């Protein structure tokens, strides 16, 4: 690829110090806490984290879908040279669906149950472009064929409930991509699907991505999907990004103790099954009472290695361990690497 050109080209998306908090009866829910990352054009960034870690709220912020009256939002979101948080609602509306599009776990959250799928896709065309009805329908049909809807010329006049779960997912993808957005955010797009259908949908997203040169943010809790599709990975925990790295670095030279915990606790088919899983003790934090220091401190095995009880009192910054590797942890980088390599060696030793 054109790596010299890429080096000077600014990233397509750049999120800086994004924070989103929701005041609720129980207290302030700090859903996203000082999140920064960027994605280069045509690449796939995976955001991985368990439920409640702030993945979807981050995505909604980029899409301009956060209700500004209900939430406190600060920071900057730059898409192709334009800042989105300060954008008036109507301008954001114009961008949504044309420049940025999103697909969800539940296709019915973007499909209207009472309209034919073809009409919904042409509606998405009319919202952003002046195209004649006939041309729009032809375009919708072509897209339905492209996403693998069988007998699309018949299915185009179906209602969503007449389609299977996998086909609805395909229709939602067709609708999201019909205006050739620069950025596609996929929020757990296959979590509700069976693995054989998941394989179809991930394959489809991948091939459309290279065909249309789309930049993708893939949100998931599945480390298998991340390894499969992502160029870079951001790990979220308790509303914060705790580690960012190129995919192979994250899996083979991880540094943040939470990432290590994830990698060693998830059962895997490529590891010796007689080996005991190493669970992360305890539970994810409540977003209302986030720990004052490191968000992972209540579950971290290594707090005692950091002098002065800093893990519990001082918030670690997301710092460079290498030019493309960021880690949020008080431990020195060499020590983290040592811990990780020892752990990975044990895990690999068990493999057949």
């Amino acid at each position: 690829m054109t790596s010299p050109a890429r080096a000077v080209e600014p990233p397509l998306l750049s999120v800086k110090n994004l924070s989103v908090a929701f005041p609720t009866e129980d207290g302030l829910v700090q859903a996203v806490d000082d999140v920064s990352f960027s994605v280069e054009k045509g690449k796939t960034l995976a955001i991985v984290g368990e439920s409640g870690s702030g993945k979807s709220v981050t995505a909604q912020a980029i899409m301009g879908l956060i209700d500004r009256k209900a939430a406190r939002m600060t920071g900057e979101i730059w898409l192709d040279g334009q800042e989105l948080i300060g954008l008036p609602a109507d301008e954001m509306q114009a961008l949504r669906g044309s420049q940025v599009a999103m697909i969800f776990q539940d296709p019915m959250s973007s499909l209207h149950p009472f309209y034919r799928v073809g009409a919904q896709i042409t509606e998405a065309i009319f919202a952003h472009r002046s195209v004649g009805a006939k041309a729009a329908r032809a375009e919708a049909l072509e897209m339905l064929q492209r996403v693998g809807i069988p007998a699309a010329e018949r299915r185009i006049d179906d209602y969503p409930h007449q389609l299977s779960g996998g086909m609805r997912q395909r229709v939602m993808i067709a609708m999201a991509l019909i205006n050739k957005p620069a950025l596609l955010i996929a929020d757990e797009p296959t979590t509700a699907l069976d693995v054989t259908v998941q394989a179809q949908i991930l394959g489809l997203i991948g091939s459309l991505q290279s065909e249309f040169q789309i930049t993708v943010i893939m949100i998931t809790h599945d480390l298998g999907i991340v390894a499969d599709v992502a160029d870079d990975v951001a790990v979220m925990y308790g509303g914060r990004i705790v580690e960012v790295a190129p995919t192979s670095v994250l899996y083979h030279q991880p540094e943040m103790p939470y990432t290590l915990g994830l990698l060693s606790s998830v059962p895997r088919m490529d590891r010796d099954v007689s080996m005991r899983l190493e669970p992360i003790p305890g539970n994810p934090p409540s977003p209302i009472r986030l720990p004052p220091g490191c968000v992972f401190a209540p579950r971290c095995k290594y707090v005692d290695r950091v002098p002065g009880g800093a893990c519990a009192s001082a918030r670690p910054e997301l710092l460079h361990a290498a030019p493309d590797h960021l880690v949020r942890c008080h431990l020195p980088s060499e020590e983290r690497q040592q811990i990780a390599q020892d752990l990975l060696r044990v895990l690999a030793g068990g493999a057949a």
Partner: protein
Amino acid sequence: MTETRAPNTLTPSSPAVAPGVAGAVAPDTLLRVDNLVKHFEIRGGLLGMSRVGAVKAVDGVSFSVRRGEALGLVGESGCGKTTLGKVILRLLPATSGRVEMDGQVLFDIPARGEPRRRPVYASNEAMKKVRQNMQVVFQDPYASLNPRMSVGELVGEGPLVHGMTDKKEREALVRDMLGRVGLNQSHIHRYPHEFSGGQRQRIGIARALALHPAFIVCDEPVSALDVSIQSQVLNLLNDLQAELGLTYLFIAHNLAVVEHISDRVGVMYLGKLVEMANVDDIYANPRHPYTVALLSAVPEPDPHRRKKRIILKGDIPSPANPPSGCRFHTRCWLREQLGRPERCTTEEPVLRALGSGQESACHFAEEISPEAVASAVASSGPTVTAEP
């Protein structure tokens, strides 16, 4: 049959055996399922009075589970796993078939087309004993626990129903159970909403264990839990099995999770078992085209080993109207490779033993080879289309 046990001590129902060798050491059968069928009638017409069809949720399944063994059951959504578990537990009435648990026949109902005979059901009294011996842990720890009952009441309910009326004795038992599943014993008076998902699942497990069952059906016990919590519960289930010699029917769609828990694995597709084998054999050397595709579809958490997949065409057909012959024939890559032999669409394959001790329900299981799989992978291009 089952020994009587002291009410507040938990004794193994069989000598504890290490997972993985259970089958070899304890060959006696605890559960036997023969030709089990469960059809849900689809009613239609005026006032829904006429029978217009049936969802064939479980359609002729036979297998047995050895004492101390964990039998995993995998398959995609709607293939009949939950229904199978519920029918075995008699939480749902069977359409036909026979289930025997620890020497006691739970029911024996003749199939359609079989010579007519009277169906046999275990008496209520016999069922009460059996129920004590087989318990269930459900997927959703939020929905399966009554929110108005305290932990003490939830865990102590079964023993109370089964005659442990002494309150002190019950509380001692509940505390013992809470300790065993890793919950704080002082939380006995708390209510489910005060616990996290993983803790609620532990309550569900304590509740199932309280009657000292030999056999537990675990239906997706970790799929509703956060990834970092799943392994806590899996380890607990593994430990309890080794400690108490429990026998599991472990239902899940996550193949890595099933591999971790199971000694043997059965693969279901559209109400049928299509393959059954020891866990190592089935993962290393699947002998049914569906199992091959299923295993190849699981993304591996290692970017250095991005897998080439067999991508199946289309979705799972409706269990109300399964394809003729082999139910997998509409999506089968091996059938395509073999030039669409007629037998696949005309003759229903039965689960048969292959030389290796594996059982497969494919007419052409012997044709599955590394070369055949490689060529199926190669023809699964990136642009995939669904079939009607």
